């Protein structure tokens, strides 16, 4: 780095003072007033850094700080106007050279002078207040910088400030330097007659290279031997030919024999049109519903829209998505041949004999027996079919004439009538009524006077046995007052009685108690006024019991099973699984081989006793719980009443031929009862001779369908 001569920098006459490196933080210390005049230096310090502003020749503005420092050192030392510097109050010079100044941070001096004495830093004991005062008072504060090399404060001259400004703006430091001078080419493309240097050419430039020769001969040899082949030209345009020129269907590979071609995409409907008919445009609610649906659940993957003209149709934003999803479908979804059964729904309906061919059966409501004020729980009919008796929750029992719907008699009782049963023996006129804890045997005194007189005589002819036997119940003869009402005998139980049913001969009857013990079922003999408990053990909550019409069998229905006992042998013969949750009622075919069970889970199970202990058929005709089921004595009919207020009459033909299964055909749904407290039909009953069905409902009526 030579001393710059005066000729090289003609504008340096007023000898700019050296300006030492200004740190990034220093310009910020300037007062606000000065900041406007001298814009703050750029923060990084890299680009707008002033390295050696004293040298106005741009060649000396070195990018690196270290070199710049040396320059400063030299130019300061050899500056022709160095004496000018001595005008400063103290001639402080850096004698330590370019070392990190923080080494002297903790010392009061920086370096040594020629005599070996310490050169002291200017004393700095200014606190913040002093600094502030100086900042406020010193008008040149903004142009005062600290020289790191010597630790002295230096006030920049106007020229120096100007220089800093220029450099900050990215201009050349020298005012007079013209960066746009026409360039003079020292070296041009033209070959000059004189060489640049006078050096004679090397020998190797005259002699062919042996190494190269060897290399070339190797390559030539390799080419001759066919080891090196010319690079094949790249084919970027594919060539096409008749790929299917020789179609050979037998050449299909094994795995393509089972190839499932990709299903085609669904073709668009009217709603996808850019101008669809107005009915395909969604309303506001539909649009909202569409937006709230999961994308996978939407029926259409777009909202139909209408555009007035083709010009207004925008690009479909999900076009690429759809193609991409199709690609994913094609290669990620396994394909499967699905056998779609194209069934005609009509073919599924079983071909049943027409109900018209299965007549007679009740079809229309003929009579309504009104009178009860509460739900009618139970019905019974005299074996002749002339009188009907009904028991209700309004604590009365009413006797009706079937053909006229006239209430012949009303029998007020002490409690709710749970069950009622007319003696099936046509020679006896007696009705068993279950009221609270007792079973009343009532002579209704209806019909033939001889008949009911005979019944009374029969009851009176009872002679008490000499030896009093222990009985589970008490047989009490009616008081005179009760006798006047028609009550003849009272069988007092220990528990409330749920059901009472007669044996076909009319002498025995069974009662079911609401109990958990083995005392749930009792069998009574009217003629001997004698009762017994047939079961030693409880087998569950007994729902209802039934006598076999011909043979000495006894059916006991618990919640899920029906047990068949042989009364003679006193043993269990069969246990029928009903496949129901809770059996509600039971009826037996007059032939005695078939049983139907109604259940609270709205099923009706038909058992063929000869066939199996499982139901032959489980009918789910009703929508709600079944309350009662009934068989007709002569006709092949059975009926079921349910909480949904309907009575369904079915044709249930049982053939004598054991090989032929019973034929069950629903023939009529009878509706008439109004639903009260969610209860519909509580009891159904067939007329003993006619194809008529009675039903009692929760609406307090009894209806006759004929």
């Amino acid at each position, binding site marked *: 780095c030579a001393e710059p001569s005066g000729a090289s920098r003609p504008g340096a006459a007023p000898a700019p003072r050296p300006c030492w490196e200004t740190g990034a933080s220093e310009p910020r210390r300037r007062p606000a007033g000065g900041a406007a005049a001298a814009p703050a230096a750029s923060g990084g310090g890299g680009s707008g850094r002033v390295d050696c502003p004293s040298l106005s020749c741009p060649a000396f503005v070195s990018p690196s700080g270290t070199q710049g420092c040396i320059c400063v050192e030299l130019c300061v030392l050899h500056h022709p106007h160095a004496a000018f510097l001595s005008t400063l109050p103290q001639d402080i010079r850096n004698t330590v050279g370019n070392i990190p100044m923080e080494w002297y941070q903790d010392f009061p001096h920086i370096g040594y002078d020629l005599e070996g004495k310490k050169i002291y830093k200017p004393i700095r004991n200014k606190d913040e207040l002093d600094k502030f005062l100086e900042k406020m008072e010193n008008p040149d504060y903004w142009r005062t910088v600290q020289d790191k090399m010597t630790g002295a404060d230096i006030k920049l001259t106007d020229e120096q400030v100007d220089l800093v400004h220029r450099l900050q703006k990215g201009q050349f430091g020298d005012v007079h330097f013209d960066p746009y001078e026409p360039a003079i080419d020292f070296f041009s493309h033209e070959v000059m007659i004189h060489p640049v240097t006078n050096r004679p050419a090397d020998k190797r430039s005259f002699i062919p290279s042996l190494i190269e020769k060897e290399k070339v001969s190797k390559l030539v040899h390799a080419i001759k031997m066919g080891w090196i082949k010319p690079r094949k030209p790249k084919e970027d345009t594919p060539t*096409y030919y008749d790929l299917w020129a020789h179609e050979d269907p037998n050449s299909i590979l094994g795995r393509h024999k089972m190839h499932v071609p990709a299903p085609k995409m669904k073709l668009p409907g009217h709603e996808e*049109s850019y101008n669809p008919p107005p009915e395909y445009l969604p309303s506001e609610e539909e649009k909202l519903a569409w937006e709230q649906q999961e994308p996978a659940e939407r029926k259409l993957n777009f909202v139909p829209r209408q555009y007035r003209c083709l010009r207004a149709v925008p690009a479909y934003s999900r076009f690429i998505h759809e193609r991409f999803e199709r690609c994913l479908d094609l290669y990620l979804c396994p394909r499967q041949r699905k056998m779609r059964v194209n069934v005609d729904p009509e073919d599924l309906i079983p071909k049943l004999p*027409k109900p*018209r061919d299965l007549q007679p059966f009740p079809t229309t409501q003929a009579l309504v027996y009104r009178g009860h004020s509460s739900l009618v729980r139970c019905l019974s009919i005299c074996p002749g079919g002339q009188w009907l008796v009904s028991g209700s929750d309004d604590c009365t029992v009413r006797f009706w004439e079937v053909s006229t719907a006239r209430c012949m008699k009303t029998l007020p009782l002490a409690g709710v009538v749970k069950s009622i049963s007319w003696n099936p023996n046509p020679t006896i006129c007696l009705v068993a009524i279950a009221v609270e804890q007792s079973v009343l045997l009532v002579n209704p005194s209806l019909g033939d006077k001889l008949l009911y007189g005979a019944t009374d005589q029969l009851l009176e002819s009872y002679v008490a046995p000499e030896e009093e036997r222990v009985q589970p119940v008490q047989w009490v003869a009616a008081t005179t007052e009760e006798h006047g009402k028609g009550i003849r005998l009272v069988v007092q139980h220990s528990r409330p009685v749920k059901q009472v049913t007669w044996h076909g001969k009319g002498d025995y009857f069974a009662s079911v108690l609401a109990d958990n013990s083995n005392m749930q079922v009792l069998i009574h003999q009217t003629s001997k006024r004698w009762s017994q408990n047939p079961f030693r053990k409880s087998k569950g909550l007994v729902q209802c019991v039934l006598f076999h019409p011909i043979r000495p069998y006894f059916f006991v229905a618990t919640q899920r099973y029906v047990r068949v006992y042989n009364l003679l042998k006193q043993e269990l013969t069969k246990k029928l699984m009903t496949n129901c949750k809770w059996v509600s009622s039971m009826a037996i075919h007059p032939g005695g081989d078939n049983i139907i069970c109604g259940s609270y889970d709205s099923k009706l199970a038909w058992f063929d006793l000869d066939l199996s202990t499982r139901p032959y058929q489980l009918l789910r005709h009703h929508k709600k719980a079944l309350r009662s089921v009934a068989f007709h004595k002569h006709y092949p009919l059975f009926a079921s009443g349910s909480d949904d207020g309907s009575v369904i009459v079915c044709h249930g033909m049982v053939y004598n031929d054991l090989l032929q299964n019973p034929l069950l055909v629903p023939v009529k749904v009878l509706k008439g009862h109004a639903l009260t407290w969610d209860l519909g039909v509580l009891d159904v009953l067939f007329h003993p001779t006619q194809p008529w069905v009675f039903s009692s409902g929760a609406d307090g009526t009894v209806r006759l369908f004929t």
Partner: protein
Amino acid sequence: MQGGLHLPPSSPWKRALSLPFSALQVFVRKLRKAYGKSEWSTVERLKDNKPSYKLDHIVKERYPTFIDALRDLDDALSMCFLFSTFPRTGKCHVQIIQLCRRLSVEFLNYVIASRSLRKVFLSIKGIYYQAEVLGQPITWITPYAFAHDHPTDVDYRVMATFTEFYTTLLGFVNFRLYHSLNLLYPPKIEGQSEVELKPTEGEAYAMDSESYLEKLSALSASLARVVAPTPEDDVEMDEFPVEGETAEQMDARKKEQEVLEKQKKLFEGLRFFLNREVPREPLAFIIRCFGGQVSWDKSLCIGATYDVSDPSITHQIVDRPRLEQQVVGRYYLQPQWVFDSVNAKLCLPVADYFPGVLLPPHLSPFVTEQEGDYIPPEKLKLLAMQRGENAGEESEEEEEEEEEDDNDDDDEEEEEEEDDSEKEEETKLKKMEEQKTQSKALPVKVTAGKVRLEDKQRLEQEQQSEEKRLAIMMMKKREKYLYKKIMFGKKRKVREANKLAEKRKAHDTAIKEEKKKNKKARRA
């Protein structure tokens, strides 16, 4: 597609591709190694020698017969048309995009040459086309010509892999199709020898290398044939009655054939001019497919054959609300007319399609209504028109009349409604709809005798329905479930149809009332 293929390991495509591509796998391995070692010269060398592969055998394996290939062409075409609209930068290799463009243009030219386009549909997603090639319906969709808003959640590598396969497939299919028509492949424009192919007039438009494809994609010129067609070539096909076919069926087939032939010559003799705001390519394609001549502004695209001022132009397709100056002797029509006419297989009356007019709804030609489906009234009108009845005018007149004596009509309608209200909901709406579409003047006279007759019928019906109900009760559980499912589906269909009909009715009445109001306002 650095390193070739990107497919999940389990895909059947991968299985098909992996066997002959071991060289490619080795290449990828070597390249990865070179990258890892930062041996750039090796990388360069490897890249130079990248093994190329062909998918020909895979196409052959996947589609052993040509018909198989045609059957699966839908996706290939849609994908190629989509890729050909991609920008030439970014998403995937330029070569693929150019190849897609070339192949799709070739296919379009084939469809024009064979006149096999059948249906077109302007959907909000894009334009659907359906062509019938060798008896196979081929449907494809092209997006509207806008820049794509490229989604970020789409894996373009997967799409590019598919496109690679599809381009191979489409190339072979094109080759075969061109040869089946005795056309040269790669296609040449008719009447231009090799020398003439050097662009003269298109110089300003495209570079030398591009002008050929551009001219081809203009779709305005017909293609050169290997053997010049002579009129004797069109040999009358002998007719062989198919066994077991009745005369009626044969007649129907013949009629169908005739209709088809007629449709192919739908625009024959018509000269179209496309305004610059109209999508040029689809319209030029469609018009040329049906024998029409088409041109456009010379500055719009290469290949314009005549000028706007040509007096022989019969139809000018315009998509702006009004025109400053109109030339006498030609129809100014909106583009939907072309599409609707093609779908209707006849040139529709032009009155509905004048510029600025509220267009009639554009219906999908892909919907074939089954029994019980909802049919929009426009479709009914169209069907009537196809049958040869002049329903359109009648209905218009009717409407006029309706407006004249609206009061009378209303009374009648009410009566009808009362009658209907007794019937079931489902039949009611349908009937109303039918009545609406047919004619209003039904004899509404109820005599006592008739009523009894109806009662009897109804009784019978009721009995039958009850029998059915009872029989349904006796069904087995599984069958019942199936039956209920089927019936549910049927009912839903009916419900949807009814909903549409109801909506339409509400809309029609609203419009009618508005019209009335306007009329009154005008009178007052």
